[in-house]
Structures are given as C-alpha cells and as structure tokens.
C-alpha cells in the first residue's frame, strides 16, 4: 500500500504532558552506563548552572519516538509498522532537558517517500514546556523495509 501523500506536512495534536522525573533521568543514564554527575547528582548539576539533574542528549527520544510512533501508526498513513526500523535520528537543543520539566511533543510529518520499496517517513518532534518554551527538536526517519530484499 503506498504512503498517503495527504499526510505530508500534517501536524498532530500535542502529546499529553510528560513529567521528567529525576529518577527517570538517573535510570536512563544508568542504562547507557553513564555516571556523569550532571545526570545523577543534583548539586553537581547546579554547579554547572542547571536547576536540577539534566538528561543525556539522547533522552529526548523517549518522548519523541513515543509521540511519532503514535502518529505514524495512523492506519490512514499506510505505513506497515511491523516492518519499521529506525533509519536516522537527530536532536537540536535550545537547552538540556531538566528534571522537573513538563514537556509536550508536537509531531509533524516532514517528508514521505518510497525508495526501492522502502517506505520512509520523517517525523519531526517539537518539544516544548507546557508554557511554550522550546526545549528541543528531534527528527526520526522511520523506514518500513521492502517486503522482498531489493539489494
């Protein structure tokens, strides 16, 4: 089934607010084996000028992929999610994510294309606080691999 071109440029409603917990940041940092004090120790983070522990640069994917996955699973889009792999990921930060942040993600479909049977969707996630302060923008290229190998 071809991708539905009507989704190009579509902006999805903002996600429900995500409360960034101090322990969640610590758990995520530990899962990537990272003992950087800025992720674990409130005083160390404050010494760097932050109000609380900050999140590793890839933490935003926890929010962004959840929101973009919900968006691209819309059956009207025509993307076979059972075949989806992560093709590319970028992050651009206005500031680091800090424990205590309450964040919403607004997903926009930036591009849609099919190359050699691979359906590719680029989903942008604009992450802001509930008060509208921009924190980060993520892009995730999601690829539904061709049913038959094309190589």
């Amino acid at each position, binding site marked *: 089934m071809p991708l539905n071109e009507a989704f190009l440029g579509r902006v999805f409603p903002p996600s429900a607010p995500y409360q960034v917990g101090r322990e*969640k940041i610590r*758990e*995520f940092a*530990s*899962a*990537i*084996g*990272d003992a*950087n004090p*800025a*992720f674990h120790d409130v005083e160390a983070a404050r010494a*760097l*000028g*932050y109000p609380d522990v*900050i999140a*590793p*640069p*890839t933490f935003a*994917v*926890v929010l962004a*992929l*959840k929101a973009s996955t919900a968006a691209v699973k819309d059956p009207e889009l025509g993307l076979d999610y059972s075949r989806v*792999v*992560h*093709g*590319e*990921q*970028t*992050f*651009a*930060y206005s*500031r*680091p994510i800090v424990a205590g942040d309450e964040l919403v993600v607004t997903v926009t479909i930036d591009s849609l294309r099919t190359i050699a049977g691979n359906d590719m969707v680029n989903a942008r996630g604009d992450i802001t606080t509930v008060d509208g302060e921009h924190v980060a923008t993520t*892009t995730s*290229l999601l690829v539904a691999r061709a049913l038959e190998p094309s190589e």
Partner: protein
Amino acid sequence: MTARVALADVEVGTELPAQVFHVDRAGLVRYAGASGDFNVIHWNERLATSVGLPNVIAHGMLTMALAGRTVTDWVGDPGAVVEFGTKFTRPVVVPDDADGATVEVTGKVAAINDDGTVRVSLSVVCDGVTVLGNPRAVVRLA
C-alpha cells in the same frame, strides 16, 4: 553551563579520547526498560532471527547514546551538546555470551563554526564494521 574544554584549546583535527563499550544482553534489557523501546528484536533471538537478523541486535538509540557519551565525557558538561545526529547503517549484533558486542567510538573536531560552536565527527565501529552513518555533534565549548 561550563564545558571543561575551551574553544581556545581545540583546532580542526583535535581528537576526542577514544572509548570502548561492551554491550551485552542484560544491557539491552536494561535499556529497553529505561527507554520504553521493547521491540522484540532487541531481546528475543527466536523473533529476531525470524525477521532475517543474524541474532538479537542492540537498539540503535543505545549505540547512539554510547557515541554521545564519548562527546559528553570529553566536554564535561553534557548540556554543552546542542546538536546530535546519526544514521543507523548497520546493526550491532549482540550474541548471548559473556562478552556480548564491543563498540569502539573515536571522534575529532571537524569544524569550528562562526558562532563559536564546534562540530565533532565520530566513528562508531563494531567487529571492524562501521555501524553508524555520519554520527556528528555540535558542542558549545567554554
């Protein structure tokens, strides 16, 4: 927000300290739980091989996080990383043994930007194969 490395201390070609990471099955389960990415190809060998993979593979985002650590360990203040991106070009296959997979990350300063930030380009290799495509970060140094 104070990076440990000063702009005045780097030039194009300055190398970041190289790092070697070990990724095993327990680490994949842990990352799945912390990230919420429970895709079966990251923990179930039967289902991973049924979709044509050689074995269970690491989350691309975990490999990217290890690459990111190489940058944040160098710069000291992780909040100094203002941009970070990569393509996922080859899987990191994680066998069910005591050693798991070994991921080697190297990096160097590729450019000094007009706004005083620097662009770091990385190389991420597993079993002699480059697994991330054009991994790069933009960092605001002290």
